[in-house]
C-alpha cells in the first residue's frame, strides 16, 4: 500500500517537472505554475489547467522567523472574567530542587463558561486567525525558575474540578512533565466566590466536582497539586504553584 503510494507520488513529481516545458511553449512572460502547492496537484499534463498568471507585483511580504503564537504573557485574547495572574516556579529534583531556568512551560485552561479553545464544527470549518488560541500560553522560566501569565479565572465543566493544564519541556522542547494544577475549594475559596458572585460566571457550585471526587486529583491526598491563591473577586486573584521536574 505504502509502496504504491510512493510510486504514485513519484510519478506526480515527474509530471510536475514537465510542466515548465509546457508553459514555456505558451510564449507569454507572465505564466508560471501556481506556487509551491502545485507540485502535488498537477501531473495530468494537460498544461492549460496550470497555465495561470504569475504575480507581477512589488516584492514582499518578507517573512521573518516568528515564534509560536503561544509565546506570550497575556493569554486572554477575547475572553473575559475575573483577572487572574498565574505564577509557576519550576524546580529540578535532579539538582536538590534548585530553580530550573530556561525550561519551556505551556499552560492551558478553560474560559469562565468551561470551554477550551479548539477547532469546532466539521472537518473543514474555517476559523478566524486572530483569537483562535485563547487561554493557551507558553513562557520560558527565568533565573528563578518562574513563569507568569495574565489570564482570567477559569470556570468549570461537568465532571472536573477547576484546573490548569501544565506541560513542562526542557529548553530543547523535550517533555519533562505533564501535569495539572488544582484549586482550593473551601467555603471562602476563590473557586466558590468567583463561581457564585462574580459577573459572568453563571454556573454557581451546583453540580461541581470537588477535588476528592475528581479523577485526576482524587489520589493527591497530601494536596501537593493544590495551588496557593490570593486576592479577591473585585481585585483579581494570583495563583502560585511550584512544580518539580527531573531535568
Amino acid at each position, binding site marked *: 500500500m505504502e509502496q504504491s503510494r510512493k510510486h504514485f507520488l513519484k510519478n506526480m513529481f515527474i509530471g510536475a517537472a514537465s510542466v515548465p516545458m509546457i508553459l514555456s511553449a505558451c510564449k507569454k512572460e507572465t505564466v508560471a505554475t*501556481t506556487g509551491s502547492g502545485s507540485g*502535488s496537484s498537477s501531473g495530468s499534463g494537460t498544461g492549460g489547467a496550470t497555465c*495561470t498568471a504569475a504575480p507581477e507585483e512589488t516584492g514582499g511580504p518578507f517573512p521573518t522567523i516568528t515564534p*509560536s503564537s503561544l509565546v506570550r504573557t497575556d493569554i486572554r485574547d477575547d475572553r473575559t472574567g475575573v483577572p487572574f495572574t498565574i505564577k509557576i516556579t519550576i524546580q529540578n529534583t535532579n539538582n536538590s530542587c534548585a530553580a530550573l531556568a530556561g525550561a519551556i512551560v505551556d499552560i492551558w485552561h478553560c474560559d469562565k463558561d468551561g470551554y477550551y479553545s479548539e477547532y469546532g464544527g466539521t472537518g*473543514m470549518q474555517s476559523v478566524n*486567525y486572530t483569537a483562535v488560541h485563547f487561554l493557551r500560553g507558553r513562557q520560558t522560566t527565568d533565573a528563578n525558575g518562574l513563569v507568569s501569565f495574565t489570564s482570567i479565572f477559569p470556570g468549570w465543566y461537568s465532571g472536573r474540578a477547576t484546573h490548569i493544564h501544565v506541560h513542562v519541556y526542557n529548553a530543547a522542547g523535550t517533555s519533562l512533565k505533564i501535569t495539572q494544577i488544582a484549586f482550593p475549594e473551601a467555603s471562602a475559596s476563590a473557586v466558590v466566590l468567583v463561581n457564585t458572585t462574580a459577573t459572568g460566571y453563571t454556573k454557581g457550585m451546583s453540580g461541581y466536582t470537588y477535588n476528592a471526587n475528581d479523577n485526576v486529583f482524587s489520589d493527591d491526598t497530601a494536596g501537593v497539586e493544590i495551588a496557593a491563591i490570593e486576592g479577591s473577586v473585585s481585585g483579581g486573584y494570583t495563583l502560585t504553584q511550584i512544580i518539580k521536574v527531573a531535568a
Partner: protein
Amino acid sequence: MKKRIVRFCYRKIIDASSEKAWDKLVFESSYKEFLMQSQFYNQEKKYNGFAELLISVPASEKLHFLVSASVIGYLQQLKGIVPDVPDNLGKHFMKFNNFRFEIINSDIKDSSAHKVAINFFSDPMTWHDTLDNYLLVSAGDGEKTEDGLLTHLLQLQPLLSIYSLKEEDES
C-alpha cells in the same frame, strides 16, 4: 437573476520540497511545534508517524489545532492577502480572515515526512459570470464606479475551490 456570493478556499500545501522563504519558515516552525505538542499524546514514544498516532490515540486529532499556533505569526505577515492566487493581471487580490491548518503527515523521527496544508478561506466575493475557465468576480459586493462594478478575472486552478455559495436576490 440571483446574485451569487462565494467564498474561495485555497489549500496551500507545504512540505520538505517547498522552496519559498515563507513556506520554509512555516515548515520548520510547524515541525518543531509538532515535535513538542505530540509528546502529550505520545508519552511513551510508541508512535513515530502522525497517521499511526491518530489511529492509536484519537484525541491526537487536536494536534491540527494545537500545531496551528506555530503558523499564526506567519499568517499575520501576509497582511490578510491569500498567497499564490493572483488574478489574471498577476496581482494578488483575494483577502482572507479565516484559515484552517492541517497536518497531512509527519514523523517524529523524520522531518522529511512532515507535510502540512493551510486552507485560506477568502472573504465573501460576488461571482458574476464564468468565461472559459475564468471566473469573473468582485471583492465583496464590488466597488461601484461610473463604468459599473470593478471586477477580477480568476483562473480555475488546482487546489483552489469554492468553499461556500450563497444566493441573494439582486437589490
